């Protein structure tokens, strides 16, 4: 396969993934401490390690969660 094409595809993919995860990380900080409470009242009295458990998921699924939070307004 053409090396230049594979390099381009790889770099575009990894760059997009990186940006997506970076934005996700920023969002997840808000989500874990505040957003989750708004989305689901069951979170309010949950222990701190529960927030740790939902943290990686909120990095990966930030677009879905953000949409849900905006719709809730």
């Amino acid at each position, binding site marked *: *396969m053409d*090396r230049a094409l*594979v*390099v381009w595809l*790889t*770099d575009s*993919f*990894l760059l997009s993934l990186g940006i997506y995860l970076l934005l996700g990380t920023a969002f997840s900080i808000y989500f874990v401490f505040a957003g*989750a409470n708004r*989305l*689901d009242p*069951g*979170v*309010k*009295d*949950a*222990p701190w*390690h*529960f927030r*740790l*458990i*939902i943290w*990686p*998921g909120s990095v*990966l*699924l930030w677009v*879905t*969660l953000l949409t*849900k939070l905006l719709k809730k307004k």
Partner: protein
Amino acid sequence: MSVSYRSILWNKQKIRYDKGLVLFILIFLVAFFGIHLVFHSNVTIETIIIRAFGLLSLVLLHVILTIGPLTRINPRFLIVLYNRRHLGVTMFLMALIHGAFSMMNFHGLGDINPIRSIFLSNLQYQSVAHFPFQVLGFFALLILGLMAVTSHDFWLKNLGYKTWKALHMMVYIAYGLVILHVVMGVIQNETSIVLFAVILTAFFGIAMLHLLVAVRETTTDQQSKLNAEWVLVGAPEEIKESRAKIVAVSGERVAIFLYQGMLSAVNNVCRHQGGPLGEGKIIDGCITCPWHGYQYLPGNGQSPPPFTEKVETYDLKLENGQVWVNAQPHPEGTAVEPLKIS
């Protein structure tokens, strides 16, 4: 069924389950390392780690994929299904160790970013025999990771059952990638035909098992006429006390429970993780899901307070000694007068 979330709802059974899992992993690793050190003493420790954790996650993945269909064939397997999520997360962690060590070992030494190197160190994407199989492993790991981090009930509730289920059905895509990853890896690195044969047998085993259960369930589904207003359930004597009969009604499965001379019909899908309510029984007056014990009142499909889960309910009628269920469901949690049969 908690009202406010806990990280993990520990109970005796889950603790025993997890202890068993840890014990299995320890025995597996000790045995694997022992065998390698005795019979392949020329192999480096990194290679043993990569192989051990790769094989371990592969075995766990097969267990995970067989539990579902096996419980359909024999309820004794429910014990394994009970905490399948911890099994899934563990499997992901084992695969992650395998992936991390492989990346360090094969891609960490050059001057290009190791993740980039996975994609670029071998460019024979058109070749079957020399395909860069590590790329497949990378994507499988990504999917398994997504599933592992969304396995808590919080995600099930907030993504909605359908989305969550769809997300977790991706395990089959991951499985396909894993099998290709392993088969190609084996072809490229091993001369042993035995390992190759074992993997293919496992793959066909899983496929056959799923097919078998699917065929069994579609034949039961077809037995009832679809799209009719009332669907025949059968004679009440067919149902055992505190148990249910499951029939398909306009594409949905409905469980018709018999208890104290009365019949009630609810949607068969448990709101927790989609367990088959009709395969459970009535305990303390509540339909109890066979998977993790969520409960619903037969008369209205609602979980007893303070819990909030609800399933759809259905009208029933008795005609010439035969029970019929109405194809039109009532909204989740609607009370329906039970049908008295005695």
